[in-house]
């Protein structure tokens, strides 16, 4: 009995590495601390009512944001571990297997559990406000999406201490990810963590398409809509076309592993290259899913801080839409070396380069918007300016990679690593950070401290170039990706050391940002106007933080940048208060605990599948079915905020007379 428990525990809990014991201890301590605070301050009711059951898009947005910052930390620690390992030749700080696990979890977490939720956080925090809506199209589904992401991410993350992490790379290519090569549970964690959160992402895509198409304020024609909302629309369109492919691909891989299928195996007639095609049919569009909203953010910021209307609005919209279509015709550039033949490679090389045209058009539009503008260098604008050169270089090296014959040289080298980090950090991360700095005062009611922000900005930027420029050179010197150590004789040592220093500078930049947030919570400049940046779009017309129903009176938005135009007419005077007589009862959705429980059931099912414990998987799936039925039988799902409450709230915000 004792012996069997012991042998179970030794395979269930990951052992043998001081790092992991450290993680065990810190996870345990954090959990105890959180539980203690909740019990001691009797916060359970508050937590449940205000957060776990909320369907308010602004709160859901904040939860996405917090979760994604935590994931940025986790992914960042992984990155620093790898850079520490590679800092010098012949280091044995991480063993080979451990290195494989770290680059796999780093890539997966950064893309799926950091970039995606940070993007969804911004969608949620901004889109309804920007289009003058009181909510998203399906608030309940929105909560489901968040909790699916949350539990999916948790499932993926516990693989670090329970069962063991995946180690077949962030795209889990077979045969490495098949039973024959990865018999442990790591790949199962990968499959189910992503699968569960991916269903949530798909639902968010549907939600925002309908929100943007159907819930715009009266007068806001599509061609009058703010650029960020346009970018969300195009990103959501890519989501609904790309994510079903991911869902199927992961399900098929799971069938191979769980039921002994032969879809992608080396034997039984399976075809591993089929998996590689499928995963990149999702994977390449995925890159555009995360980068297009960043483009939208830059467009808003450039216009606001140059005090000019965005240059070439129509061409911006056209560029977004053509990128979203073209993104589906480039996937083969990830494996030009597959051996598909010159004609196939040429098609995909040309399609890839074609994307450079609309992207370049956007860069010129931003530059022309700034040209002769009255530019203010506040934090959001700083990150936008830093983005432009970074993205131009990243784009240029991308075109180099797209030259099919040359790719035989760069393929899987450090050149590639440098390129995609340049676009992912320079484009996506800088973009979302700019967006967070920009919209933070709207959602939280205070600005983030400028001085600490500047420190973070310079550390990130300098660190970035110090880290990744040497990697282009290392690529040419023959260093390939996913090597865990190298010898003195290769001469890669000095550049790797420089690169590691840069990575740690970025890490310090992140610490400054955390400090900046904590500091600003207490001392940050409060925003009493609702319009701290002298903004152009509707979200700046309401108080910060916005009341639960957003707009007391649904605005009319007949022009592009209608809030700005209105202010111009009023000579920059703040919005006049709303006469109480105009206020009415407001229709709102009710909170619900079902999304949380439903997603927790998915977690249980996923955990069961990971460990091949059928009873647990069935229990979870039954829970999923029952919660769906429970929701189907609920009819009392919304209510009216009474006029008196609306009046009170508006008076408290100084907005009603």
């Amino acid at each position: 009995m004792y012996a069997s428990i012991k042998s179970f525990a030794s395979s269930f809990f990951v052992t043998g590495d001081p790092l992991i014991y450290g993680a065990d201890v810190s996870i345990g301590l954090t959990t105890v601390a959180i539980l203690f605070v909740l019990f001691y301050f009797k916060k359970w009711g508050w937590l449940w009512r205000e957060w776990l059951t909320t369907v308010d898009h602004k709160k859901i947005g904040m939860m996405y944001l917090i979760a994604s910052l935590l994931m940025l930390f986790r992914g960042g620690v992984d990155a620093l571990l790898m850079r520490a390992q590679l800092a010098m030749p012949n280091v044995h700080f991480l063993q080979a297997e451990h290195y494989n696990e770290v680059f796999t979890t780093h890539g997966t977490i950064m893309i799926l559990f950091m970039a995606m939720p940070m993007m969804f956080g911004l969608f949620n925090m901004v889109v309804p406000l920007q289009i003058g809506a009181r909510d998203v199209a399906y608030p309940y589904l929105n909560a489901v999406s968040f909790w699916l992401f949350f539990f999916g991410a948790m499932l993926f993350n516990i693989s670090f201490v329970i069962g063991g992490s995946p180690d077949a790379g962030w795209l889990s290519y077979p045969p490495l990810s098949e039973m024959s090569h990865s018999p442990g549970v790591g790949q199962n964690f990968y499959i189910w963590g992503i699968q569960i959160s991916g269903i949530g992402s798909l639902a968010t895509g549907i939600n925002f398409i309908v929100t943007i198409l159907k819930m715009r304020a009266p007068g806001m024609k599509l061609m009058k809509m703010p650029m960020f909302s346009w970018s969300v629309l195009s990103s959501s369109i890519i989501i609904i076309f790309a994510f079903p492919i991911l869902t199927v691909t992961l399900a098929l891989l799971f069938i191979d592993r769980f039921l002994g299928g032969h879809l992608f195996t080396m034997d039984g007639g399976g075809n591993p290259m089929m998996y590689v095609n499928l995963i990149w049919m999702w994977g390449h569009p995925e890159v555009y899913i995360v980068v297009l909203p960043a483009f939208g953010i830059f467009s808003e910021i450039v216009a606001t801080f140059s005090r000019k209307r965005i240059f070439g609005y129509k061409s911006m919209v056209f560029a977004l839409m053509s990128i979203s279509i073209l993104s589906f015709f480039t996937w083969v550039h990830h494996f030009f070396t597959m051996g598909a033949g010159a004609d196939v490679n040429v098609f995909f090389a040309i399609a890839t380069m074609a994307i450079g045209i609309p992207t370049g058009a956007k860069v010129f539009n931003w530059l022309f918007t700034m040209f002769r503008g009255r530019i203010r260098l506040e934090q959001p604008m700083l990150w936008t300016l830093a983005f432009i050169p970074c993205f131009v270089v990243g784009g240029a090296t991308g075109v180099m990679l797209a030259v099919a014959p040359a790719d035989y040289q760069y393929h899987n080298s450090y050149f590639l690593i440098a390129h995609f980090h340049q676009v992912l950090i320079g484009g996506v991360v800088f973009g979302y950070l700019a967006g967070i700095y920009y919209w933070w005062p709207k959602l939280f009611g205070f600005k983030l401290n400028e001085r600490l922000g500047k420190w973070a900005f310079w550390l990130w930027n300098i660190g970035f170039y110090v880290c990744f420029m040497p990697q282009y050179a290392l690529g040419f010197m023959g260093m390939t990706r996913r090597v865990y150590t190298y010898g003195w004789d290769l001469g890669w040592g000095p550049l790797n050391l420089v690169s590691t220093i840069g990575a740690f500078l970025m890490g310090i930049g992140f610490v400054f940002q955390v400090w900046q947030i904590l500091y600003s919570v207490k001392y940050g400049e409060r925003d009493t106007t609702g319009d701290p940046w002298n903004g152009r779009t509707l979200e700046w017309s309401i108080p910060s933080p916005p009341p639960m129903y957003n707009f007391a009176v649904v605005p009319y938005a007949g022009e592009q940048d209608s809030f700005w135009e209105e202010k111009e007419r009023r000579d920059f005077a703040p919005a006049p208060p709303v006469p109480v007589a105009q206020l009415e009862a407001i229709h709102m959705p009710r909170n619900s605990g079902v999304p949380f429980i439903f997603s927790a059931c998915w977690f249980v099912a996923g955990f069961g599948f990971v460990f091949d414990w059928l009873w647990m998987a069935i229990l979870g799936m039954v829970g999923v079915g029952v919660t769906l039925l429970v929701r189907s039988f609920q009819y009392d799902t919304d209510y009216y905020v009474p006029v008196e409450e609306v009046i009170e709230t508006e008076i408290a915000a100084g907005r009603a007379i």
Partner: protein
Amino acid sequence: MQHATSHSHSNGAGAHTHSHDHGHHDQESMKVLGFWIFLVTDCLLFGTLFATYVVLKAHTDGGPTGKELFEIPGFVAETFILLTSSFTSGLAVLAMNRKKVNQLIGWLIVTVLLGAAFVGLEINEFVNMVHEGATISTSAFLTAFFVLVGTHGLHVSVGLIWMIALMVQLKMRGVTPVTQRKITVISLYWHFLDVVWIFLFTIVYLMGVM
């Protein structure tokens, strides 16, 4: 106008009317639109499975082929039953538009029975194949086959449970804007599964036995 009716369920009084409520969008029709978009994603899901099947169709690895396994009377009967059920679900929607609750529920029952018969036949087909030694792990072709056809069967089974739940709700509440939207949605879903089956019938079964 529609909302006034649907909300009167939730608070009994139905005191508010639509004229009060600017910026309140027609939620029932919006939900139907969302469902259409969901169907687009489901199309892609099946599209990906079909693509996998077509790529792996010839990869039998020395195991049995479709020609040896598929039995014409079986899949022809399945096709016939499913097409009929699509028709009866259409009749259910017609009854709903004329506000005839009992007739509506009646046609839904017929649809559920036909759907259940379809699933039964499919399970029977799978069991027979497994007895002949053609299992999901026999070859890439068979994995792709079971996954593709099984996913469709799973969709049908989910639809059955869903339809039964809706019948209970119809009994409890009658035809309201909300139940009306729910029935519209499931009938869309049901027709969609029918269309998918036509592709299955052609690409998997007909081309398999040819």
